């Protein structure tokens, strides 16, 4: 995906939400119609720099997520491109109808950039963890849905979506994702990225789990399994033809995501496999339709088998079954 020979991006190693904080300032300088909003979480979603740089173009609506989305819709009536940010769980669920009816039904160019996706707000527990947001957003007509792997991909997606005519959802993390991309690149919406080709076995993943899955592939290689890794950061619009073209070379496919296994990436891939009549072994790995517990991130990843060892063990079980 990287066409330019560049040096390492200064964003490498940052959590995706911090990359957002930096890139939104850059975009703000390029386009004066860009405004940013948060619901009393400017620090947490990293809009503080934007607020400082453009105090007249930043709005804190208070602890009021429904208002956050409605106001964002209204700002487009004044020609603005609003970036509305809160935690993923609140963007998807607390403000669901405002997102659907005010923003998406009207096909307005609001960018909903959420933070704390998946279980990355570890210690906060189920109330603050987001395991349904991809399911919600990908069901909304006209909504583009992105789940970047790391800071560099976040920046690329933010730059590539500024001029999208309709609404956009971008899911970010609280934690620093493992680095997948080191150099800046031009993002192509909808295009899956085969990070490791592997042989016969493919792990398809998204967001914060991409780095975990790449490390799982290394562990698996030591065990003699040459598993590939496919990053799908555009959940919608997903280029199903491109996915089928890749999948037809594999016998076993497992999806890995920090999301309920219902209606997330795994379901999106299952739909493609079923409709293309692909004959392969398929398994969805993620949060298995339960409410999660709280604790240090490392412990949660291990408990839900979403760290490299857990992913490795799950894949080996799938291969043995």
């Amino acid at each position, binding site marked *: 995906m990287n066409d330019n020979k560049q040096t390492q991006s200064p964003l490498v190693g940052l959590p995706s939400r911090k990359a957002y904080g930096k890139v939104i300032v850059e975009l703000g300088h390029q386009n004066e119609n860009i405004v940013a909003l948060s619901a009393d979480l400017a620090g947490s979603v990293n809009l503080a720099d934007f607020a400082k740089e453009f105090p007249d173009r930043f709005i804190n609506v208070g602890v009021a997520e429904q208002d956050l989305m*409605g*106001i964002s819709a*209204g700002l487009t009536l004044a020609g*603005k491109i609003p970036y509305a940010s809160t935690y993923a769980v609140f963007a998807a669920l607390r403000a669901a109808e405002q997102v659907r009816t005010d923003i998406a039904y*009207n096909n307005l160019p609001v960018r909903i950039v959420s933070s704390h996706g998946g279980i990355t707000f570890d210690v906060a527990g189920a109330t603050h963890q987001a395991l349904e947001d991809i399911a919600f957003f990908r069901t909304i007509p006209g909504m583009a849905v992105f789940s970047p792997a790391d800071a560099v991909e976040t920046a690329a997606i933010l730059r590539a979506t500024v001029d999208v005519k309709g609404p956009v959802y971008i899911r970010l993390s609280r934690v620093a994702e493992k680095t997948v991309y080191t150099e800046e690149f031009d993002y192509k919406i909808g295009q899956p990225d085969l990070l490791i080709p592997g042989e016969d076995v493919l792990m398809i993943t998204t967001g914060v789990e991409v780095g975990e899955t790449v490390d799982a592939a290394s562990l698996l290689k030591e065990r003699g399994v040459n598993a590939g890794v496919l990053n799908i950061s555009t959940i919608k619009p997903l280029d199903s033809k491109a996915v089928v073209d890749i999948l037809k070379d594999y016998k076993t496919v497992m999806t890995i995501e920090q999301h309920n296994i219902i209606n997330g990436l795994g379901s999106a891939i299952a739909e493609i496999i079923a409709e293309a009549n692909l004959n392969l072994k398929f398994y969805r790995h993620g949060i298995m339709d339960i409410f999660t517990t709280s604790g240090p991130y490392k412990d949660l990843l291990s408990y839900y088998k979403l760290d490299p060892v857990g992913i490795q063990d799950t894949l080996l079980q799938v291969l043995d079954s």
Partner: protein
Amino acid sequence: MESKIKELSKIATLIDKDILTTARDCAVGIHIGGNLTLSQIMAVLFFEVANLDPKNPHWEDRDRIILSKGHGNVALSSAMARRGFFPLEELEKFDTFNSMLSMHIDKHRMPGVEISSGSLGHGLSVAVGAALGARMDKAQWQTYCIISDGELEEGSVWEALMCGANYHLDNLTVILDRNMFTIEGPTEETMALEPLAEKLEAFNWFVLTVDGHNIEELLEAFNKKSPEKKPKFIIANTIKGRGVASVEGKADSHFFKISKEDAEKALAALKSADAEA
């Protein structure tokens, strides 16, 4: 002034007439009660107060009118058609398959409308956003938002009320269709809103209470400047189902298909009132 009031009254009567004929000729029915409350408000807003250009509906400096109570779409459609946004004949196709005009507003089918609406409690946040956008650009255009009293039972409206006052949006005017009813009955019995003016004042809004069917009072309220950079809230006291004797001022006026007989009676009453004026 007197001729202006007369002219706007005549337009309001035409809107009443459009509502009644649509309610009579449509397939299923309309929200007749909560449309007949809006005729004078729409007449004043579309034909006097708001700065609009029907030939250029996307004109950058237009005032933004947001009908949050999207079920008031017949009154809005009538006012917009008569103002020249689209042909009046579109009302005859109301609620037919994929028609421009339907029970609730669809922006994609209805030229000149700012935003689709229908689900209650959404429009005021959108209006706050529009007013904030105008403020950022130091633009002179105004935002008007028409809400229902039932909507005030939605928590999201109070989020928007807080925000509008917090940001001193004196370029925003809310018009409340205070007809005293939700679907299930009188607001004060189902979910009491009073003392409403005091609540809104406590939320730091500039509150005016008028007879929502009185053109002169409406004009005066729209023209009054807000003190202390407060957003304006006009409580327009209205009569649900006004002009249809069998249901006037009753919860039953909410949604139905009016009988030919009742429609003719109401239309005849309008005609004679118009002749007297």
